């Protein structure tokens, strides 16, 4: 099915929408409580570092693990592919004449589609995790890594149970449904000849596995049947219990916001088993490669093998929250799902779903293993973009317009002069907008578009004489496309303010694009051109105190992506690196220079933190505003959650973008503020456009314009 069809289907699913939304709200609170008093950064660095290893080290770990369990008569099988693993497990069942195998939750078994294989062989795996069991009966797959059936309502589950059991099931009574599962599954543990579990950690020093569960099903699965099979990926190996406990400390907190799960079970080798002929359990370890080992040697993708499968990258992903795990991922779900689909199943399987990442970077900052998930997705987008091509119109625009600053300037100049038949003044806030965009597809019509500015920022900068101000204190300002072509007044407001404070502002000789639109769309060639254009016209004099940006996405690009793309060009790389250290958000510069303000008027003001302010430039103007505004400031719920813009994402995945924006607007309305301040022109375009579309009278201002109009400097 085409990806947009799938997305639209999920967007219509009200149950999914409500469940994911409620979960997203509850999760944030419980996660914060669970980590209370702990240093999340330190904990995740620990996990990241203990998982930082090459193939050689992992094989050493494996060999030691194997030795520790084989010594006691356990069997260890190295499965090269998923099919190898399936076949081995089927053989164990057949050798024991066991038609039934109870399973506790294992994402690895989802990865290799074990159940399908076994069913085809006439064998019966029985999922014992409640969520997995519901889905197994319903013949579906999980839509979340730790809450597999999050897309189901109690009524749906009741129907599934009643069809399966032939009993009457009260569609409101969850407790009774859980009782049904208890009764039916209890029987299965005792009927099954084999029990299979995964492993959250595999401790090398002793050959012990650790299992993290809430239901206790893994305990029964590994206890009652006489045979225990452990299916585990090599990446779960760790040296010792200290490391294993470092992982156990973060896993439940990040997964469900629990301090620890009800059960954490440590199992070694061959335990007593009354059901076994010789009184001792038969234990098999199936170590799965299925493509993962190759990536331990990859400089970037090895990061993905640090995943501890908590699912938190999905929990905080604004796009996942809109469509759920049946679309946002494949066998694995969330950001890591996009990545592992590409690595394990190949880029063909991942090429469409990778595009669904909006690039907000929330996952990278939330991962308890410290994986920079968003940058891996970005990297993979470039790989598949190059291999399978990108939207041909986009490609043309990038190549022939955006990557050629002069052409872009002329074309947009023409646009600005000839857009008048389409423009009109939006009555609510007197802003010039495009009244009706011709031939705009319906799903894209969820916000008003700003008109192009009649004169560009650069033009006005020179024409209005801002270049004639000289001072010993200097900064360089990179306006980026949005300020240059749509919002010159944001840039000029900043220039005025700085000049009043005695700071000279220099700007690039030419207006260029930072390359992010091309990177996000998976077009590395044109991204490189844009980045080089920009690098070449950014001045790098030593006496610039800062390289200021009003668009944090551009700033983040200079800091991070410019380095990646200039790696093979030492001169440019050096320049990028030097510039990167000087990049600063405007608000940060004001704070660092201790410029003091007081508020004029009695407006009620709230603030949206742009994704790339907090997560690329490590800044948010929230504290600044809160301290200047005092009681006039109202904090915005989920201030640092994406507004849904993402550049061309808001056109490519308009319906997802719209859904994310709707939540932002709801939160804005809940503040009762009359002004929303933010400091990214992209966020302004999105949020202001959405508010105008809905006719909501909240003024949206960039921080610079807000300061210009509502604050005054205290000398």
């Amino acid at each position, binding site marked *: 099915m085409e990806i947009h069809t799938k997305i639209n289907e999920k967007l219509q699913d009200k149950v999914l929408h409500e*469940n994911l939304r409620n979960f997203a709200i509850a999760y944030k609170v419980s996660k914060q409580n669970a980590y209370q008093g702990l240093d999340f950064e330190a904990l995740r660095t620990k996990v990241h570092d203990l998982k930082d290893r090459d193939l050689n080290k992992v094989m050493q770990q494996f060999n030691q693990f194997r030795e520790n369990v084989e010594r006691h008569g356990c069997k260890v099988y190295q499965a090269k592919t998923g099919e190898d693993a399936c076949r081995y497990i089927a053989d164990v069942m057949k050798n024991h004449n066991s038609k039934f195998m109870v399973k506790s939750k294992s994402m690895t078994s989802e990865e290799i589609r074990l159940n399908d294989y076994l069913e085809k062989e006439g064998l019966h795996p029985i999922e014992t995790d409640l969520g997995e069991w519901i889905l197994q009966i319903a013949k579906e797959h999980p839509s979340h890594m730790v809450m597999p059936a999050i897309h189901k309502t109690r009524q749906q589950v009741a129907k599934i149970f009643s069809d399966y059991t032939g009993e009457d099931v009260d569609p409101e009574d969850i407790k009774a449904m859980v009782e049904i599962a208890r009764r039916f599954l209890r*029987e299965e543990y005792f009927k099954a000849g084999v029990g299979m579990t995964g492993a959250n950690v595999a401790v090398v020093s002793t050959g012990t596995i650790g299992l993290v569960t*809430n239901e206790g099903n893994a305990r029964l699965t590994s206890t009652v049947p006489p045979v225990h099979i452990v299916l585990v990926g090599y990446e779960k190996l760790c040296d010792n219990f200290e490391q294993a406990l470092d992982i156990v400390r973060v896993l439940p907190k990040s997964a469900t916001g629990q301090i*620890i799960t*009800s059960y954490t079970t440590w199992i070694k080798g061959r335990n007593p088993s009354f059901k076994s002929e010789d009184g001792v359990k038969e234990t098999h370890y199936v170590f799965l490669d299925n493509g993962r080992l190759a990536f331990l040697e990859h400089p970037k993708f090895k990061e993905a093998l640090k995943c501890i499968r908590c699912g938190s990258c999905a929990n905080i992903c604004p796009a996942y929250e809109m469509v759920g795990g049946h679309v946002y991922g494949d066998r694995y779900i969330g950001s890591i799902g996009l990545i592992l689909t590409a690595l394990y199943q190949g880029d063909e399987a991942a090429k469409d779903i990778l595009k669904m990442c909006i690039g907000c970077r929330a996952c990278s900052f939330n991962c308890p293993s410290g994986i920079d998930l968003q940058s891996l997705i970005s990297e993979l987008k470039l790989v598949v973009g190059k291999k399978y091509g990108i939207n041909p119109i986009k490609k043309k625009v990038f190549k022939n317009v955006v990557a050629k600053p002069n052409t872009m300037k002329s074309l947009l100049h023409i646009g600005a002069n000839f857009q008048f038949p389409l423009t009109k003044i939006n009555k609510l806030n007197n802003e010039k907008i495009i009244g009706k965009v011709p031939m705009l597809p319906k799903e894209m019509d969820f916000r008003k578009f700003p008109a192009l500015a009649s004169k560009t920022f650069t033009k006005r900068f020179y024409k209005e004489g801002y270049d004639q101000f000289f001072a010993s204190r200097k900064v360089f300002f990179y306006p980026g496309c949005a300020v240059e072509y749509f919002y010159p007044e944001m840039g000029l407001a900043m220039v005025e303010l700085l000049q009043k404070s005695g700071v000279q502002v220099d700007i690039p000789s030419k207006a260029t694009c930072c390359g992010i639109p091309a990177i996000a769309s998976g077009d590395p060639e044109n991204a490189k051109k844009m980045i080089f254009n920009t690098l070449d016209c950014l001045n790098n004099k030593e006496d610039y105190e800062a390289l200021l940006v009003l668009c944090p996405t551009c700033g983040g690009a200079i800091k991070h992506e410019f380095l990646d793309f200039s790696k093979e060009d030492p001169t440019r790389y050096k320049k990028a690196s030097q510039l990167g250290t000087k990049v600063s958000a405007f608000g940060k510069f004001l704070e660092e220079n201790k410029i003091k303000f007081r508020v004029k008027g009695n407006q009620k003001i709230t603030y949206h933190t742009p994704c790339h302010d907090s997560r690329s430039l490590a800044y948010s103007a929230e504290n600044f505003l809160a301290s200047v505004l005092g009681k006039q400031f109202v904090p915005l719920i989920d201030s640092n959650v994406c507004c849904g813009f993402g550049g061309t994402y808001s056109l490519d995945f308009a319906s997802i973008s719209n859904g994310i924006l709707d939540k932002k607007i709801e939160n804005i309305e809940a503040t009762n503020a009359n002004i929303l301040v933010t400091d990214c022109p992209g966020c302004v375009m999105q949020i202001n456009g959405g508010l105008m579309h809905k006719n909501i009278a909240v003024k949206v201002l960039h921080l610079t314009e807000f300061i210009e109009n509502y604050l005054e400097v205290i000398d």
Partner: protein
Amino acid sequence: MILNNNAFEFLAFLLVKAVPEKLNNIQFSNNPPMILLDHFLQKSALVGNENRLMKASEFKQELAKKNFEYIHTPSFELIKDIRVGEGGISSALVEADFAIGETGTVVLDSSNENKRLATCLAEKLYVIVPLSKLVDSLHDVAGFLEMKTSGMGGYVAFITGSSRTADIERVLTVGVHGPKEMILYILTDL
């Protein structure tokens, strides 16, 4: 011989490694509960456990009133051994090897199959926690895990509350496979 060595090592381990220094100097009878115990009780209550603080003598009286179907408590030399089957049992009483303040967890060596079945299949799980076995953090039991699972087999359970699920509409429901209630006897003088 081997067994003796193990036992000796275990004892030495308990004395040297696993008991935090601060525990050695604490008098429980009149003093307000220490921070560590507070932590433990808080975390344990958070998952819905019933925590009952008492002295060993009080516990013995309590014991006389109850009729546990399975008992395994070495400190009281009490053993009532059965192999629990599919039908389950109403209650089991076991003794914690450790309790962890950081998480409100009890640690049970469960390599004994009957003990494991009983703790998995009892409707109510009662656990004795001698206060001297209370440690600060997860890492304080790393050595215990290492020791208990370095041989041919080993099975150690961290238990923090009853068997629970939130798989239907995220509504927390207890007793999905195992115990529906967990009750701790924290013995302050043991």
